[in-house]
């Protein structure tokens, strides 16, 4: 097995019934339903090596979730080739299913009225995990995610953050080799987000698991993913290392400085593009190649108290990718 995941020219269309608003609309669609085809994926191709942690970025409806669902065998591809761990996901063979897991931030598998431990026990039986292994993983996962004390609380009484962590435990008890995470930090507070992120990072390193992650939360991706795939309207716009994304699309860097005097402030224009000027704060945008020179000039010619050089925020970079992708 060279690649954990192979996707080639994957196309997925959905038939959706259109409904006009109001009661007349409802009646109309009952008599003659208007069908519309939605092109969720328009020929997506990529491969992922075992042990990679890849981030999927894209706006709502870009096709991220559709890709994950196709890879885990939930959706039948309209056309194209998909292989995960040498299996066709659609066959849903038990030996394939035992090696994967899909966690959806907005869908729970835990039994709502029962304590989480019951779902775990059930999963132990379903995945046929040996008791010894099960107890070890359970102990380890609950410690890592800090939910040991909540095992006997009915799931409906858990907070969203606690529940999400329980979902992760439930999804990982069988130690999947491939993990699909769909918005794992959605709706969580900052502390809980960090906990989940740290955990995903550890899991990837410790077990060499292949992880495919979608998120709207840029911190998830900058912290976790070495490689990102940017997808919009069903097509891939960028696939590569995070640094390459920044280098390729962020042609400029940001210099932030704090000045002590207002003298000669107008001359700042000569050093770089002034993005913001609100004494004593100055923000300049400078071409990547000349950033060192610009910083030196600034220090020499202006009363600088403090100075930092930063990358353009990743959100801005990605916005740029979407814009340029749309122009193509």
């Amino acid at each position: 097995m060279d690649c954990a995941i192979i996707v080639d020219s994957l196309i997925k269309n959905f038939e959706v019934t259109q409904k006009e608003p109001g009661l007349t609309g409802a009646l109309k669609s009952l008599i003659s339903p208007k069908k519309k085809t939605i092109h969720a994926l328009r020929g997506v191709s990529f491969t992922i090596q075992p042990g990679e942690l890849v981030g999927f970025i894209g706006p709502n409806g870009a096709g991220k979730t559709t890709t994950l669902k196709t890879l885990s065998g939930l959706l039948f591809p309209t056309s194209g080739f998909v292989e995960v761990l040498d299996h066709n996901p659609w066959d849903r063979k038990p030996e394939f299913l035992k090696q994967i897991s899909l966690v959806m931030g907005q869908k729970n598998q835990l039994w709502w009225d029962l304590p989480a431990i019951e779902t775990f026990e059930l999963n132990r039986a379903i995945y046929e995990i040996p008791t010894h292994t099960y107890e070890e993983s359970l102990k380890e996962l609950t410690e890592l995610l800090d939910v040991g004390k909540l095992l006997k609380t009915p799931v409906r009484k858990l907070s969203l953050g606690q529940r999400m962590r329980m979902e992760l435990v439930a999804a990982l008890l069988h130690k999947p080799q491939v993990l699909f995470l769909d918005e794992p930090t959605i709706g969580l507070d900052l502390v809980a987000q960090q906990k989940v992120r740290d955990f995903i990072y550890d899991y990837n390193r410790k077990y060499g698991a292949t992880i495919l992650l979608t998120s709207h939360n840029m911190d998830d991706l900058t912290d976790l993913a070495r490689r990102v795939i940017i997808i919009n309207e069903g097509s891939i716009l960028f696939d590569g290392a995070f640094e390459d994304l920044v280098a390729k699309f962020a042609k400029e860097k940001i210099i932030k400085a704090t000045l002590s005097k207002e003298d000669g402030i107008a001359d700042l224009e000569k050093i770089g593009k002034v993005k913001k000027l609100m004494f004593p704060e100055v923000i300049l945008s400078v071409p990547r190649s000349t950033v060192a020179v610009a910083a030196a000039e600034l220090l020499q010619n202006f009363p600088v108290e403090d100075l930092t050089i930063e990358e353009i925020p990743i959100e801005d970079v990605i916005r740029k990718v979407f814009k340029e992708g749309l122009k193509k």
Partner: protein
Amino acid sequence: MTKYWSIFKISFEQEFAYRLNFILWRVRNVFQILLTYFLWSTVFASPTTEIFGYDREKIITYVFGIMIVRALVLSARAMDVSGDISTGDLSNYLIKPISYFKYWFTRDISSKALNLIFAVFEFLILFLILKPAFFLQTSPIAIFAFLVSIILAILIYFLLLFLISSIPFWAPEIGWGSHFLVTVVVIESLSGSLFPINILPNTLQSIVMATPFPYLIYFPVEVYLGNITGTALVGGLMVAAAWTGVLWFSLNFVWQKGLKVYQALGR
């Protein structure tokens, strides 16, 4: 097998999570029995009355027979399948190494076990209060045939319910309406749980007997009462078995098609 035993246990616990809900459902069943009982007691007020070949004792046994058979056959959970499909919760099962059909069948069995325990208690209590003249079947052949017909009834109802619950693959909004139509309207009236099918005119009776519905309630109860024997018994069991087969193949066919259009919604 352990998988499904675990599902059986957790399903049992789940039923207990909503104790009050469960008790109210049982109370509803008792009322239904009482209503039917008093209705027929009034009709057969005089001990000598005999209508459609049923005397007081037989009709009362029929009513009590319904009670046990209902608990066994009509207590099912598979109608939740339609919800799973339209909300996308089905995805949770599809990504696990588990058969979704067997999963629900196990939950059905679990629900039946629980309902049966309660039905036996209710049966004893109502029996002691009302002291009805009850017909006890003693022929081992009839009892064996009764058990076979019950198993077929359970399978038919499971498959029927599953099939109806698969409609949301194509029409996600339909969920509850179809379930209502089938369980409440069709099954209640054609299964024999409101009245014995053989009070219908002959032509209508043979039409109804060709459908799978009377094999849910009417047929097993009649077999218990010893009203259906010999060729009629064998023939009936064969029709029931044939329906089980037809429904099983239809269900597999429908699911093969359905999963291909499944959209795994919910996000």
